């Protein structure tokens, strides 16, 4: 009850504060609502920014992120293929702090008390929140592949951009001519459905230039290519005949790090570079709220507000959330969900109903070579009867063909989404 009155004090006079831009802090300084955002990827960083932007600074936002800098997974396959630098995909959080007034805390979360509404950090700080938004991304289920744990240096995943990205690039560069580069893809759902196939393309692109007798083996636990299938197959046939070999229904059982051997259900593959993308689940920070996980892996949310079921004041977005139908786990989608969350949080803090008809859309570009890319797009509307987002029928779709024009569009997409998320 006291809290509600505080919210009304802080937010109820929205229009009054809007009319007094220079004096907004006067009325609200007594107590501003506080939103704690955990995870500074595409979802969390966008949410932090838009919460500040859309509240005209009337809501305090603390972003907890353990890494000092933002390293983009989208475009990181270009780094692996030797076509871009790490600097290109590395960005800092200064814009969120300096331009938007987000408080940045580079620390790890050790505990969350959803009753006392408190987040505890490894450094000892305790953050009290009015609403909590978790955007923890993915964690790997490394234990699902025997022999993999502790051998990330020998068998990189490079599925979270950073040191692993460079490591995989270096292993590719050091691979002997005529060598075998094997990628293993886990069963869906996983982060960035077209990503593994883009990676195979860009590794082949690199090999064509530097090691033309190399082999790129795509070992897929799934029955088929998970995204842009026809476009990838056409590009592989045209650009890398006899270099990329695709083997579906190939579940990985164990690995031997010493010999870089993958033991699959039906064969053993010894590779010169072995890139295992492990099965994935919600980032483990999500475990701290004690929510039920769908299939033991993803946090179910109410998509109208992104609130976690039966967990008042706690929201989850991004790859960690159990997606609505045909909603991909992508940075673009996390950024879009962040805006749904930010709008809903501000409405709820002001005791107003959330937007009853939110929309999200996804655009995902994939490179098939250094000079050519293609897209898949979709638009999703909130359906009140189904109580979830549904793809708008007749909207979205694929490129007709991969092209240089779309490679330029992909670069423009990256510049803009990085700026929209962090700038």
């Amino acid at each position: 009850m006291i809290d509600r009155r505080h919210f009304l004090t802080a937010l109820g006079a929205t229009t009054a504060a809007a009319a007094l831009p220079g004096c907004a802090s006067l009325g609200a300084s007594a107590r501003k609502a506080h939103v704690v955002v955990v995870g500074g990827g595409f979802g969390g960083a966008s949410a932090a920014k838009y919460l500040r932007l859309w509240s005209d600074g009337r809501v305090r936002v603390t972003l907890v992120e353990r890494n000092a800098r933002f390293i983009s997974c989208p475009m990181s396959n270009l780094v692996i293929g030797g076509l871009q630098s790490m600097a290109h995909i590395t960005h800092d959080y200064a814009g969120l702090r300096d331009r938007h007034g987000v408080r940045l805390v580079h620390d790890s979360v050790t505990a969350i008390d959803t009753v006392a509404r408190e987040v505890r950090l490894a450094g000892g700080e305790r953050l009290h929140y009015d609403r909590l938004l978790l955007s923890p991304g993915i964690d790997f289920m490394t234990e699902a592949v025997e022999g993999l744990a502790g051998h990330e240096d020998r068998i990189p995943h490079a599925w979270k951009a950073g040191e692993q990205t460079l490591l995989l690039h270096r292993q590719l560069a050091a691979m002997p001519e005529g060598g075998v580069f094997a990628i293993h893809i886990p069963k869906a759902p996983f982060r960035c459905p077209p990503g593994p196939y883009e990676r195979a393309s860009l590794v082949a692109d690199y090999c064509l230039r530097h090691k033309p007798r190399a082999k790129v083996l795509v070992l897929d636990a799934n029955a088929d290519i998970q995204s842009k299938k026809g476009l990838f197959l056409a590009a592989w046939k045209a650009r890398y005949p006899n270099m990329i070999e695709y083997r579906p229904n190939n579940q990985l059982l164990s690995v031997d790090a010493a010999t870089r051997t993958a033991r699959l259900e039906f064969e053993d593959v010894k590779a010169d570079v072995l890139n295992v993308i492990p099965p994935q689940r919600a980032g483990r920070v999500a475990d701290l709220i004690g929510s039920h996980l769908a299939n033991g892996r993803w946090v179910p949310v109410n998509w109208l507000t992104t609130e976690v079921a039966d967990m008042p004041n706690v929201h989850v977005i991004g790859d960690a959330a159990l997606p609505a139908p045909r909603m991909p786990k992508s940075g673009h989608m996390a950024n879009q969900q962040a805006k749904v969350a930010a709008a809903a949080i501000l409405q709820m803090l002001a005791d107003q109903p959330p937007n009853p008809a939110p929309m999200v859309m996804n655009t995902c570009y994939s490179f098939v070579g250094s000079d050519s890319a293609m897209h898949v797009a979709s638009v999703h509307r909130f359906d009140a009867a189904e109580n979830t987002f549904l793809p708008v029928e007749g909207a979205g779709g694929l490129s007709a063909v991969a092209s240089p024009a779309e490679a330029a569009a992909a670069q423009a997409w990256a510049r803009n989404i990085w700026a929209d998320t962090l700038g």
Partner: protein
Amino acid sequence: MLKRIWILSLAGMWAAAAPAHAQGMADTTARSLAATCANCHGTNGHSAGGTESLAGVPRDTLLRKLEAFRSGEKPATIMHQIARGYTPEQLAQIATYFAAQRPSARN
């Protein structure tokens, strides 16, 4: 001078307070719709480069374009697929929102 600003601000506050509820909801809905464009066209339509800035584009100009993408009359690599995901009313809200934004310097 300060006093005058204060008085004007109070007057503005008074005027804005009454219809705030319904109007506020419509505004935030349009804002949220327009924000779905920001990943490619920049926050509030201020492109970071390589795409069109939508901020400050006259409403009718932008709406005609979006409608042409939606109907397929205007060829595109991707915008025809995206525009079909929105109703004509939503496209009009989006166009109205961007028209009201300060134009981008780099336009």
